[in-house]
């Protein structure tokens, strides 16, 4: 009887977790998930290899690149596994921390639920959703190598088993770490703020290997090929997959070829298999043994520390002196809420880091040529800065809940004055945000003063345009602190797409339009302006488009937000 009850408890928790993760499909969730898993299996087993094979044959016939694929396979597999490992470790962790669940734990613990049941239940509830990621994502990465080695059916089955085990171990680990962090932070506004910050940073760390894979696949493979990485669990899974592909190959690899792989991979199939199994068992064991400690949480950050406001800093005092009106006061208080939230500071730091990394990557790839800076660096940096503007100035930064919006709207012209204050703040913050990457590019490229000023103007107006865009879209469809909400995702996606279109796709559209109307493609007109003229014209077109589109959206957004709800 006791066993039956225990089983039911973790199963019920797993069901609840599964229902939360698939909430958008409501009553059809079981049907939808079953269909998706069937499609995923078909995709992994048949359609993905077929599609990848067709695409590869269309680009470069497999016979020509088979040897190359075989050579880069072990290193690339480690890079892929590093990405998958980070994905399964950090994404569930990031999702868990975006919403601290101490309140749910209290309900479960008050109902005499074993702490191990909570850990097992929340873990199992996540498995179906993340299995879909493995089924849909992994075949795309693995198919070229499966084709190159012509891996047998049994070999493929074993490879997907290893991948699934790796996923399960990593999600389990993520679950344990997430529980520990949540328990430490507690359910409080400050704990939530810190948790959301960590969640955001996790997202950033996951992006790094993806960027690495896209831009520096060969360098990354070479780095990961070093023996020091034999100490990392993702290497064991990667090498195990490599050995399975080699062992179950259909191309009759010779003994010397296999010896070659042995010298790269160092550890053999059995050793890697043993390490992967031991790591999995250790993770589960540590998780089980530490549950009592993990779920013992403090009273929460709220009661532990009370933060008291002392004096206003000189910048805020100066701002209020420049504008000593009620509007100035709205700007000053909004700035305080912006900079006192750790998650906002993290967001700004994250956006700035990306804006600083992009020019370095472009220079590394294309070299320090001024002509290339205008043709390659400008659009990439512009998109990076626009992305940064959207990321920082979308609604989550300023409004915590709909109740705050009610308060703002209950003042006469409250919504309009609030949005206008946000625009002023955005234009102020855009100054350092655009200046820092501009200085970086100026130093890297050795630009003259007038070039620096031109580039700064371009970057500043890009950030301002993106900020207008982010604010306008959010005013039309207000979203709050919940970054998982459909409104937030829709707003971010819309703003990103407009930025991408204006900064990267705009010239293409102009080319089609000018060719149709005057018979001359846009790039020919631009080329006739010379390198500098082309760069300036490109900058003016991009910034003006962003400012006009963003400005219009803000105007419509203010009107919409000021109206009473229907």
């Amino acid at each position, binding site marked *: 009887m006791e066993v039956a009850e225990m089983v039911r408890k973790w199963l019920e928790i797993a069901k609840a977790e599964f229902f939360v993760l698939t909430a958008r499909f409501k009553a059809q969730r079981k049907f939808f998930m079953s269909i998706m898993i069937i499609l995923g299996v078909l995709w992994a087993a048949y359609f993905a290899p077929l599609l990848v094979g067709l695409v590869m044959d269309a680009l470069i016939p497999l016979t020509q690149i088979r040897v190359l694929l075989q050579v880069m396979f072990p290193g690339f597999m480690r890079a892929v596994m590093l990405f998958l490992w980070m994905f399964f470790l950090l994404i569930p962790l990031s999702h868990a921390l975006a919403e601290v669940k101490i309140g749910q734990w209290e309900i479960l613990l008050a109902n005499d639920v074993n702490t191990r049941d909570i850990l097992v239940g929340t873990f199992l509830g996540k498995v179906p959703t993340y299995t879909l990621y493995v089924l849909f994502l992994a075949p795309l990465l693995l198919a070229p190598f499966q084709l190159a080695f012509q891996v047998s059916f049994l070999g493929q089955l074993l490879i997907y088993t290893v991948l699934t085990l790796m996923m399960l171990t990593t999600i389990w680990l993520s679950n344990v770490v997430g529980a520990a962090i949540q328990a430490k932070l507690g359910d409080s506004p400050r704990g939530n703020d810190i948790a959301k910050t960590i969640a955001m940073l996790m997202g950033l760390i996951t992006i790094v290997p993806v960027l690495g894979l896209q831009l520096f696949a060969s360098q990354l493979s070479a780095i990961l090929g070093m023996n020091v990485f034999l100490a990392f669990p993702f290497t064991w899974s990667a090498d195990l997959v490599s050995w399975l592909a080699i062992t179950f190959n259909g191309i009759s690899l010779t003994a010397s070829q296999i010896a070659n792989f042995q010298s790269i991979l160092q550890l053999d199939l059995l050793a890697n298999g043993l390490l992967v199994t031991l790591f999995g068992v250790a993770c589960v064991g540590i998780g089980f043994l530490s549950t009592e400690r993990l779920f013992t949480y403090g009273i929460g950050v709220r009661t532990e520390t*009370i*933060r008291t406001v002392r004096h206003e800093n000189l910048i805020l005092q100066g701002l209020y002196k420049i504008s000593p009106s009620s509007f100035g006061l709205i700007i000053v208080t909004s700035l305080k809420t912006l900079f006192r939230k750790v998650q906002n500071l993290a967001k700004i730091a994250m956006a700035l880091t990306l804006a600083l990394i992009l020019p370095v990557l472009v220079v590394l790839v294309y070299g320090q040529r001024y002509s290339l800076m205008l043709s390659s660096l400008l659009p990439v940096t512009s998109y990076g800065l626009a992305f940064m503007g959207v990321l920082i100035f979308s609604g989550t930064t300023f409004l915590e809940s709909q109740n705050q919006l009610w308060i703002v709207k209950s003042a006469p012209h409250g919504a309009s004055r609030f949005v206008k204050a946000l625009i002023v703040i955005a234009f102020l913050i855009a100054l350092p945000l655009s200046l820092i990457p501009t200085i970086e590019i100026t130093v890297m490229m050795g630009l003259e003063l007038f070039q620096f000023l031109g580039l700064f103007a371009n970057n500043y107006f890009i950030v301002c345009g993106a900020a207008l865009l982010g604010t306008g879209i959010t005013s039309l469809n207000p979203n709050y602190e919940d970054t998982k909400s459909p409104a937030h995702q829709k707003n971010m996606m819309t703003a990103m797409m407009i930025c991408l279109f204006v900064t990267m796709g705009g010239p293409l559209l102009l080319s089609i339009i000018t060719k149709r109307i005057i018979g001359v493609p846009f790039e020919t007109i631009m080329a006739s302006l010379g390198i500098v003229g082309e760069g300036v014209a490109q900058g003016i077109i991009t910034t003006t488009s962003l400012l006009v589109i963003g400005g219009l959206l803000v105007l419509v957004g203010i009107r919409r937000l000021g109206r*009473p709800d229907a």
Partner: protein
Amino acid sequence: MNTSLCIKTEGLTKVFGSVQALRELDLKVKSGSRFGLLGPNGAGKTTTVRILSGLLKQTSGTGAVCGYDIATQRDAIKAATGLLPETPGLYSKLSAVEFLEFIGALNGRNREALHRRINRLLAILGLEGRQDDLLESYSSGMKQKVLIASTLLHDPQLVFLDEPTSRLDPAASALIKDLILILAEETETSFFICTHITSFAEDVCDVIGILNEGRLVIVSSPQQIVESMGVKDLEEAYLRIVGGKVEGRALLAWR
């Protein structure tokens, strides 16, 4: 005695899809009075407050608040009224003083004009020792007090209070009760209070309306309601009108 009306509605109706939240509300509230709107959850109290304070469009019907039309003069209504929403939307990273400065600024007041008033309000509400602490460290009751201060800050003619004492301890509830009574008496501020707590409504309000399933069932003084229903207090009258009284045996039927 002031005989002008601060609220007047005719046939006010609000429909959300298939749900009729408010049905043909005809209401007259005198200036300087303390009107209590009682009703069960989902009866339409918050919808009424949101329409009257200019935050929500009515589906049909007309109305005026402080002499301003609810369909065309919403900003004038917002300037003349104060609103305590049902769920607090405080800024966790501002102190009480900074939050009140923000609300004052949204209502067009600058810092110098606000400071003395903020300090006095916080002192009356017993928050003077914690006024510079961030609101994230406040208890629910303290947050409610800050919100009540924010509704009074710009000296409104009419104050809408949606569940003002739901998160307060008995001492703080008594304080709010006294504050409403003295403000109504000394400044002729009108109050429109939505509440579940019948004893609070009985003590504070001079007129009470009971809303059930979007329809205003009765409007009268608490004493007249009790007398007309032949019961001993307002709670009993309320339960008679809206239902919800469950017999003792039925209460244990789930076991």
